[in-house]
């Protein structure tokens, strides 16, 4: 009795479900769409509009396209920052990939203590980036804990000027970035490594492949999509470097660690020239899109 009553009701429900499904979909998607529109599409449009105007932080904007763009090549600080940012990106990406890969291989297999080690390696990633910058700024300070430790153990006699020379400042900052991000990149690689089926390894071992051969001919090729993701994240993030240099070196010493985004910040918030800063952002955005497309093409060739 109950069954017969329920059946047509269920059919009706199913029919109305199919009729309502598109609406439901729209309902689910709307909040995200609104967020994307308000927080991404709208500001992006605004950036393009600003870059076509003389837009001071104070006073009303006036249309001046393409003045902001033609002024970009005249800005020596910006040109220098491109060279520096590329150099930084190259070093960070190579070192970070190597360290992350090393860590991932270390804790790849389930053994006693791997859970603990994975947590330890990942923990720095839970520290805010700005906080990590301040932390290392404190470590590197003259008469700071790092110098005290080195002097107490007799490794150095004089205080080390961690941020005092262009190279020291660059590598001290890179050390902080590696510390902060190695664990996170390890995690990305780990997901890729664990997606490789064990029987592929077993088959290789049965065929007498050495460890090196397994890594070269099995792990690396199968890890390619994951590596691509990690590289894209690392390159993009490094090209947009700001916090670490803003906090630890303020672009110094002698302007040697001024990244592209720091120039952008200076134009917008020290010189109050938002139009020019927006033009630089647009150029940077286009460069990033092109670079990422190229990177993915090369890395995922034949996939």
């Amino acid at each position, binding site marked *: 009795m109950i069954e017969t009553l329920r059946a047509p009701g269920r059919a009706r429900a199913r029919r109305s479900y199919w009729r309502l499904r598109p609406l439901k979909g729209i309902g689910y998607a709307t909040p995200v769409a609104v967020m994307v529109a308000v927080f991404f599409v709208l500001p992006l449009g605004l950036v393009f509009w600003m870059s076509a105007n003389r837009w001071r932080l104070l006073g009303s904007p006036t249309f001046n396209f393409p003045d902001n763009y033609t002024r970009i090549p005249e800005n020596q600080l910006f040109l220098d920052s491109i060279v520096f940012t590329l150099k930084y990106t190259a070093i960070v990406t190579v070192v970070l990939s190597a360290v992350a890969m090393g860590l991932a291989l270390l804790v790849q297999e389930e053994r006693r203590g791997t859970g603990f080690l994975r947590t330890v390696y990942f923990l720095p990633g839970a520290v805010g980036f700005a906080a990590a910058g301040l932390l290392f700024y404190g470590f590197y300070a003259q008469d700071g804990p790092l110098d005290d430790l080195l002097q107490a153990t007799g490794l150095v006699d004089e205080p080390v000027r961690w941020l005092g020379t262009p190279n020291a400042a660059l590598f001290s900052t890179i050390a902080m970035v590696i510390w902060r991000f190695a664990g996170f990149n390890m995690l990305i690689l780990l997901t890729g490594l664990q997606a490789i089926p064990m029987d592929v390894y077993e088959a290789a071992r049965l065929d007498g492949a050495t460890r090196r051969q397994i890594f070269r001919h099995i792990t690396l090729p199968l890890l390619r999509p994951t590596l691509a993701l990690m590289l894209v994240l690392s390159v993009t993030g490094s090209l947009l470097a*700001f916090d670490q240099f803003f906090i630890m070196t303020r672009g110094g010493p002698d302007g040697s660690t001024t990244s592209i985004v720091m120039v952008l910040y200076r134009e917008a918030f020290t010189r109050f020239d938002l139009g020019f800063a927006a033009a630089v952002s647009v150029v940077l955005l286009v460069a990033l899109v092109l670079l990422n497309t190229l990177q993915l093409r090369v890395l995922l060739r034949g996939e």
Partner: protein
Amino acid sequence: MASKPRIAITLAVLSLAGMVAACGGGDDAADDKPAGAAQSGSGDTGAALTMWTRAATEAASGRLVKEYNATHKNQVKLTVIPTDNYQARVAAAAGGDNLPDLFASDVIYAPNYTSQGLYLDITDRINELSFKDSLAPAHMRLGTFEDKQYTVPHTLDLSVLFWNKKLYEEAGLDPETPPKTMKEFAEHATTIREKIGGDTYGTFFGGNCPGCYVFTFWPSVWAAGGDIMNEDGSASTIDDPNMAETFKIYNQLVQDDVVAPAAKDEAGPTWTGVFPKGKIGVMPMPSTTLGAMPPDMDIGVAPIPGPDGGESTFVGGDVIGVSASSDQADAAWDFLAWTLSEEAQVELLAKNKDVVARTDLANNKYSAEDPRVVLSNEMVAKGETPFALNFGATYNDPTGPWLKVARDAVYGDNVEQALASGKESLTQSLAQQ
């Protein structure tokens, strides 16, 4: 690593900040009382006033506001904004017409706001003050734009020489006689380094801190009658012989190992923390730090001399004005006039060893107890504050041209050449529209 649309997000956050500020402004509007309610020149009508200040000078502002609220019908609500964000916040609020009734400004940046019409013209109100001629002259100059006055002094911070009397005695120098010229300054510092040595050095400065060079080196040029810029701050005159002379003295001190080596990397945050450790003989310091020095440390305070004599100081600190968009100007002025009164200046600022904003109050019952405070107070009348619309981008920003010029001059091997080539880049930055 940062997510991809980082810049877009930053800008989105900024535009949001504008919206949030708009909402904040809306709340206050409900409490507004019509400005016309003020009767017979008295602005104490029970108005609710809003005020902004930067974190760096929060202490003095807070004390003034607290006492004013306790003794007046008007109530001032003080909002303290992180120093690094202050300019951007003011500009964003100005764009959205959301400025508070009163806002303070680092005196150096006052011209940016007066030239944009953010402050109300208070020339007539200032003229009614019986003590208007004794208001800190350098601050008054910076608050004046095209012959109209927009701001009054709020808090003062001067650069003065601190010398460590104990080290002077140890080095066989007279602990009661400070250097009268920069050349004597160099002799004293060198003697201390040579006679005591070890980890004790003659002097110290913020060698990687652009604002520190401005604050501590420029007074030597003014003391000798020279200047760093032209009148309207649009061209650099950094090749002034007195600037070269001053840099040469510091350059020599660096070469002779008289300057503590940490100076070269000192980017600013800790430059005032070195002297109180008792290992530095004599150095320019901010007057506001005197109250924070170790109580058992015997410190002398003297004006910063020029290469061959004279004396001057950099008059820093904050000025404050009524925002042009405030509809409670009478009430806001009531607060400003009160902060400059003898009662507020002496009981709230001088009592705390702060420098007073009025030269006629230099000698008051609290400063009389400490001649060093009287000296700072008196220097207010003799000091300078440089005027330039592009001051921040040119001189205070570490990626701006000034830091390179100063470092080349102090740590390079040719001062004249460093200043000559610096003059060009500085003028270019100052003249930029």
